[in-house]
Structure formats: structure tokens, C-alpha cells
């Protein structure tokens, strides 16, 4: 950076020299033709540019001095100042002083004398600040209230000056937490002018910013919109009522409010039904109400709102305790349902709500930004690129994406594996890249983003891509594929995750250390994730890991087989259907049913796990999805959705296939959690065995 600063200063010095030569020439010319407009303009521009650049590069004295001279010539341009011999003499003397200033040895007293002389001519005070805004930094540190209501209504011609509302809303979001409500008044297509802005926005902003900072966001558009900014104050003991907020905003009249209150239905509903307010205005006001409720708490909290470092095992303990609480609550609920005691039911519901909030909070604390592990890869990539003699840059994106710390711990090895793979097999050497007309420097991009209940972590390289023909040949060679078998591209790519599959021609120190793609796949399966691969020959490969946000508690579907209970992770469940005698069919020893015209294979955990007991006449099938393939699981009864606190099975049972953990039910019973990918694998093996027979 210092190089650049020096470079920029040098550029300025060169330019200033040129400007001063031009200034001198023009002044001499002006002396001959005192009324020549072009010459006057040239002088003005030279001085003006000098002033601007000087200030930019830290030559305050020159800028200040140029400002005085500029004033004089501004008056000449405007016709209020005559080009006198005195003026030209002063300007020429000023040029000499500029030269000295650039050398750095201008005597201050001469400058002062000169400024005074110029001021006499222009009649302006010399100490007037150069035109930069003095107000620049003064506005940020005053009173800092936390909550704001902003109504931003752009005029119809808002776009005409190249303004765009979106960056403004994003800039507001940078100031704090925002809740944005859109008021959309876009007419039908026939009446719509695509160059007109029909939208307006209400923003509830919570953050440590002043009104000036908020106004500053809208500084370029203040004439092109209606803008109101209001501080939301804590309202003492009672939170603000919706009606009062709406009346205060002028969205409804007080009579409408009284009318609505008389009806005694939910206020917002009535207002909406009677057309007094649009649903967007209403939800905006509700957001403000919510914000107001929080004001009181936050004010008290702010003084102590600092970061605390906590050992991570304490977080694990907290999560365990929350898990216990969830379990106890389930028991309590069961107990309360058996009694007809309204009071108890209410209390149990209350406890349930608080337990849920506690759970959300505890999980939130365990979330860590994924950037923590991304940063480790800089070193890895650097070392690998030296080792292999490849020129590689690592880019990361979405570092701030948060994910449960247990998952982060599970993610390290797979990511190391994938990055090594990308460096070793993915990226070509600089020479190969040049030959292919690519940038000799290879790029690996690690990125993360949240997508609904999942986080997607992807590793992209711009290398050679996966050679699908090679994969196919290998698959045939390994007996995974018939020579002429038609297969979808995705399915073919997924073959690289099959055990013992590797397309690398040779084993190097970087890869081929026994950690194959199958192990990687297993690791990701264990944490309930999935892998997607996109590749284009010659262009590169993207491997996306789709991971759950948390591992500690999942939503599950509780099912029963005889007297045993099992939990199927709800994320894997597609649907539940009934299995009657007619739709049963057995093909190749595997059970199949007809699912709306498609053949659906299903497993009987009853047999798999050797559970005794009579088979009911009607079984239920839970249809689960594993990697785009559907699989049925036959059970006796589907009990319902269940908040499942996952407990590990302990060392002894760790290697048992088919289960990913256990959980304690409301009545103290234990349910095992079914491992869907493992079961799907078992189902596939059943087919193979059947084929062998």
C-alpha cells in the first residue's frame, strides 16, 4: 500500500508541474487578451484541478492556497471581477509560490501575505475552509438510540437518475438488524409503466446508529422520495398497542381504531378485512410492535452486552440439559393429556413454549462461523501448491455462514480431502493450463451459504473436470455397471463414491492415502448430509456438501414395530402410505410395492432387526429418500412427529449398522434412530445377494 501511496504522490507531482506550466502560459496569454473566455476557463480549470488533486493527496497547503486563487478566477468567469494587471501579477506570483510549495520550501509568511492580497481583490475571507464538507465526521457519535421506524416512499420517477432502492435497503441492513415490509402497488401489466417505481418500504431498524447515519444512507435521494424516520421509544410499563402505532403513523384514523376495538376480534384482522389497511402495512406495524417490546429488555441488557468466552464442553453440557428438558417435557405432556385438568395443561404448554425457546437459544450459541475452518485451508493450499509446483489461489466466500460446532468438527477431514483432491487431481499444472488457453494460476473456491434448514458448503476448482468416460470405464471394470448400460450423468458421477473407486492414475503423497471418496461419503452421511457433484470436462468441478444446521436435536417421525419404537429423521421422509395385501409383490426376493405406477422397493426392519411379535394385517410404509432414490420402510404404526434429542449409542454399539443413535421418549422408553443411508445400502446388498442365488 505504501508503494501505491508513493506512486500516487509522484503522479500528482508530475501532474501539478504540468498544470502550473499551463497556468503560467495562460496567464501570459490573458495579459495580452484580457477578455478571452477560453483562456479564462483554462486558467480556472487548471487552478481548480490543482486544488482538487492537492487535497486528495495530502497537499493541504497547496489546496488551501489554490482555493483562494480559484475564488478570484471564479469571479472573473462570472463577470464580477475584472482582469487587472494586479490580478495577473498576483496569479503569476502565486504560480511561483506553488512551485516552491511543491518543492516543500515555501515561506509561510509570503503565502499569508499573498492570500491577504488575493482576499483584498476578491473580498472574501482567506480562512474560509476549502470547499470540503466540514460536517463530514461530526454527526456520528451523538445520542445512539437503538430502534428506528423508517418509511421510504420513492417518487414514481425514482429510477430516472439511475437510483436504485435495493442498495439503500442493503446499506440500512449494514447499520443493524432490519425488518423490511414492502408496499407493492404495481398495477396490472396493461397499466404498468416499467420505468416507474410503484413500491415503497417500511423498515424497522435496530442497531447502534444515529438519525444522521440513517439520513446519510438516503443522502442522494432525499429529493426523490418521501422519507420519514422516527425513533421508537420504550413505552414504560405497557408495550405499545397496535392501534396506537397505526394511528401514530397516520395509517388509520382514530375512529377506525375505536370501531375496530368495539368488534373485539383480533384488531389487525378487522382492519384488514374492512379494507382500512393493506396487509403489508399491517405486518409492518406488527413488526414495529415486536421491536418495541424488545426495546425495554435490550436497554437493560446493553450495559452488560459483552462477549464471554466459554469452554465448548460447557456448551455440550448445556445442550444435553436442554435435551433432558425436552424429554421431560414430552413426559409431562403425556401425563397431562391423561388428566382432564385444564390448569395443568396450560402450565405444560407454557413450559413447552419456554423449552422450545431455550432450545433455539442454546442451539444458536453453538453456531460458529464456518470461516474459522476455511482460514486453515489457506496454509494447506499454499503448501500443496509449492509441493506440486502448481500456482493456485484460494478464494473463500460466505465465511460468516454459521453452522453447529459439532458439524464443523465433522467437516474438517472431508474438506481437507476434497481440497487435496482438487489440488492434486482437479487442477492442471501451469504448463497444461497455458496449453489449454487458461489462466496459468488455478483457482479453488471454498464457499458456504445457508439454504433453508441446511448449509451448503462447496468446493469449486477450475481444473480439468472429471472425465466421465474414464469413470464409466472404471465402473464397468469394477463390475458396478454393465458395458452397454444407460446411466444418467449424475448417477455416473456418484459412482466415484463407491468403495474402492479411484480414477487417479497414480497414487501420490497428496492423495491416495487410504482416505477414499467412499469414506468421505460415509462421513458426510453420518452427519446427515448429502453430496452433489457438478463437473464439466476442461472447465472444472464443483462438489457441494449439503449439511444440516445442527446435530443435537432433529425433527423425527416416531414409528412402532411390535413393542419397539424407532425414529426416522423427518428430513428424509417423503410420505407415508398404507401397505395392504394387494399392493405387495416380491421381486428378486426383495419386497416391492406399486407407488402410483412406480415400483417402490421396501425393507422390513422387523426381519432385519429380528423383532418378534404378530404382524398386523395392515402395515404402514414410510417412504424415505436417499440420494434421489426412494425406499420404503414397513412399520406397524406411525405415531407422529417427535422432537428427537440424539444420544450416541456408546462405544459398544457404535459399529452396529442401521442406527445413527438413540433417544429417550416421553414415557422413559428408548427409541433407536434409523440410519437411512445405511438402510438403503443394506437394501442394495439384498438385491445383489438375490441376483447371486
Amino acid at each position, binding site marked *: 500500500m505504501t508503494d501505491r501511496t508513493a506512486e500516487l504522490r509522484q503522479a500528482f507531482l508530475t501532474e501539478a508541474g504540468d498544470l502550473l506550466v499551463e497556468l503560467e502560459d495562460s496567464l501570459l496569454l490573458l495579459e495580452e487578451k484580457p477578455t478571452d473566455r477560453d483562456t479564462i476557463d483554462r486558467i480556472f480549470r487548471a487552478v481548480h484541478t490543482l486544488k482538487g488533486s492537492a487535497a*486528495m493527496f495530502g497537499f493541504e497547503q497547496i489546496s488551501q492556497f489554490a482555493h483562494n486563487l480559484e475564488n478570484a478566477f471564479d469571479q472573473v468567469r462570472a463577470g464580477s471581477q475584472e482582469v487587472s494587471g494586479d490580478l495577473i501579477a498576483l496569479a503569476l506570483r502565486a504560480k511561483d509560490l506553488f512551485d516552491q510549495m511543491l518543492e516543500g520550501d515555501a515561506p509561510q509568511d509570503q503565502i499569508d501575505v499573498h492570500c491577504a492580497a488575493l482576499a483584498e481583490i476578491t473580498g472574501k475571507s482567506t480562512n474560509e475552509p476549502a470547499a470540503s464538507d466540514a460536517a463530514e465526521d461530526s454527526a456520528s457519535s451523538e445520542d445512539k438510540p437503538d430502534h428506528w421506524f423508517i418509511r421510504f416512499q420513492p417518487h414514481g420517477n425514482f429510477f430516472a437518475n439511475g437510483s436504485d432502492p435495493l442498495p439503500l435497503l442493503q446499506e440500512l441492513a449494514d447499520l443493524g438488524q432490519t425488518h423490511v415490509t414492502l408496499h407493492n402497488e404495481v398495477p396490472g401489466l396493461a397499466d404498468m409503466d416499467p420505468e416507474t417505481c410503484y413500491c415503497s418500504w417500511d423498515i424497522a431498524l435496530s442497531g447502534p446508529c444515529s438519525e444522521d447515519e440513517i439520513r446519510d444512507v438516503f443522502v442522494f435521494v432525499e429529493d426523490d422520495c418521501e422519507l420519514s424516520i422516527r425513533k421508537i421509544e420504550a413505552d414504560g410499563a405497557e408495550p405499545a398497542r397496535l392501534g396506537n402505532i397505526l394511528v401514530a403513523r397516520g395509517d388509520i384514523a382514530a375512529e377506525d381504531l375505536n370501531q375496530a376495538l368495539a368488534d373485539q376480534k383480533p384488531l389487525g384482522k378487522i382492519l384488514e378485512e374492512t379494507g382500512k389497511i393493506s396487509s403489508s402495512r399491517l405486518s409492518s406495524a406488527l413488526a414495529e410492535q415486536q421491536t418495541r417490546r424488545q426495546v425495554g429488555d435490550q436497554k437493560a441488557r446493553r450495559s452488560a452486552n459483552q462477549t464471554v468466552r466459554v469452554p465448548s464442553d460447557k456448551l455440550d453440557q448445556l445442550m444435553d440439559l436442554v435435551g433432558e428438558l425436552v424429554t421431560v417435557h414430552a413426559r409431562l405432556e403425556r401425563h397431562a393429556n391423561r388428566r382432564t385438568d385444564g390448569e395443568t395443561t396450560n402450565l405444560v404448554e407454557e413450559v413447552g413454549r419456554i423449552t422450545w425457546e431455550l432450545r433455539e437459544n442454546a442451539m444458536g450459541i453453538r453456531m460458529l462461523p464456518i470461516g474459522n475452518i476455511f482460514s486453515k485451508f489457506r496454509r494447506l493450499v499454499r503448501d500443496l501448491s509449492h509441493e506440486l509446483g502448481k500456482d493456485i489461489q484460494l478464494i473463500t466466500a460466505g465465511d460468516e455462514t454459521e453452522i453447529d460446532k459439532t458439524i464443523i468438527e465433522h467437516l474438517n477431514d472431508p474438506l481437507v480431502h476434497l481440497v487435496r483432491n482438487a489440488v492434486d487431481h482437479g487442477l492442471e499444472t501451469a504448463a497444461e493450463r497455458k496449453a489449454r488457453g487458461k489462466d496459468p494460476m488455478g483457482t479453488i473456491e471454498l464457499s458456504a451459504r445457508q439454504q433453508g434448514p441446511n448449509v451448503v458448503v462447496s468446493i469449486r476448482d477450475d481444473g480439468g473436470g472429471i472425465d466421465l468416460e474414464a469413470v464409466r470405464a472404471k465402473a464397468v471394470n469394477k463390475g458396478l455397471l454393465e458395458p452397454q448400460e444407460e446411466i444418467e450423468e449424475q448417477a455416473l458421477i456418484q459412482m466415484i463414491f463407491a468403495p474402492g473407486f479411484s480414477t487417479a492414475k497414480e497414487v501420490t503423497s497428496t492423495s491416495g492415502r487410504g482416505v477414499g471418496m467412499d469414506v468421505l461419503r460415509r462421513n458426510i452421511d453420518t452427519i446427515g448430509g448429502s453430496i452433489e457433484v457438478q463437473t464439466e470436462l476442461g472447465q472444472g468441478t464443483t462438489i457441494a456438501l449439503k449439511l444440516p444446521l445442527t446435530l443435537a436435536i432433529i425433527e423425527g417421525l416416531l414409528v412402532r414395530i411390535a413393542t419397539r419404537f424407532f425414529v426416522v429423521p423427518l428430513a428424509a421422509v417423503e410420505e407415508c402410505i398404507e401397505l395392504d395385501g394387494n399392493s405387495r409383490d416380491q421381486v428378486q426376493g426383495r419386497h416391492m410395492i406399486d407407488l402410483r405406477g412406480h415400483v417402490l422397493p421396501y425393507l422390513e426392519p422387523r426381519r432385519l432387526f429380528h423383532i418378534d411379535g404378530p404382524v398386523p394385517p395392515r402395515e404402514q410404509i414410510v417412504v424415505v429418500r436417499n440420494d434421489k432414490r426412494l425406499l420404503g420402510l414397513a412399520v406397524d404404526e406411525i405415531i407422529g412427529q417427535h422432537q428427537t434429542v440424539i444420544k450416541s449409542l456408546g462405544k459398544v454399539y457404535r459399529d452396529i449398522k442401521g442406527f445413527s443413535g438413540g433417544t429417550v421418549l416421553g414415557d422413559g422408553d428408548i427409541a433407536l434412530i434409523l440410519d437411512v443411508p445405511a438402510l438403503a445400502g443394506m437394501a442394495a446388498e439384498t438385491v445383489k445377494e438375490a441376483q447371486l442365488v
Partner: protein
Amino acid sequence: MSKVIMTVDDSASIRQMVRFTLEDAGYTVLEAGDGQEAVTLLDGRTCHMVITDLHMPNKDGIEVIKHIRAHQGYRFIPVIMLTTESQAERKQQGKAAGATGWIVKPFKPEQLLKVVKKVLR
């Protein structure tokens, strides 16, 4: 695809400073030494934003802004004017011609980036 921003200024040092700052932030930069050059460069090529000085030989900043607003391909791109004047009059003149916003010289690189983020994301 990085966004393309054009800097129009008769001061080479200011153009250079704008270029360094924007390129460091990942933008692609086009340079024009005066208004006429800017207008010639805007021949339909991709340009997401223009930062222009006001006082320039050949064509001044106001004319550049008017040209952009009249051009079908660039009508809605943001145009930021560089000005040493904080007087409302200058800004009004620019705004009337169609400028999106302004930066008062002298400015620091971070101020420039802040303004760019305000109009282009």
C-alpha cells in the same frame, strides 16, 4: 463478472487513484480523460456506473451526464459527480441533469467505495 465503472476526469492522478481504489475492491475500471472521451467510449459496451468530474475541457461533466441519460443503453446506470464545491447550486445543476449522487473532493478511498456501494450492488 466484476462490475465495470468508468472514471472521467482530466486529472490523471485522480483517475489513477480512482482506478487503484476500485480495482482493489474488485471492480473493472474504464478511464476517460475528458467528457468527449467518455462519450466516445460509451459506445454500447458494458458499463455499470460512471464517476465523472464536472469541470473538464471539450465536454464537461454535466454534458456527460445528459448524454448518458439520453442513451438507451445507459439511461438507468448510476452516475456520481466529483465536485469540489459543496454549494447546493452545483449539486442541483448535476442532479437536474440526471446525476445519481456526488462525492465532494477531497475524498479518501473508503469514502469513494462507500458511495459506490450506495448506488451499485
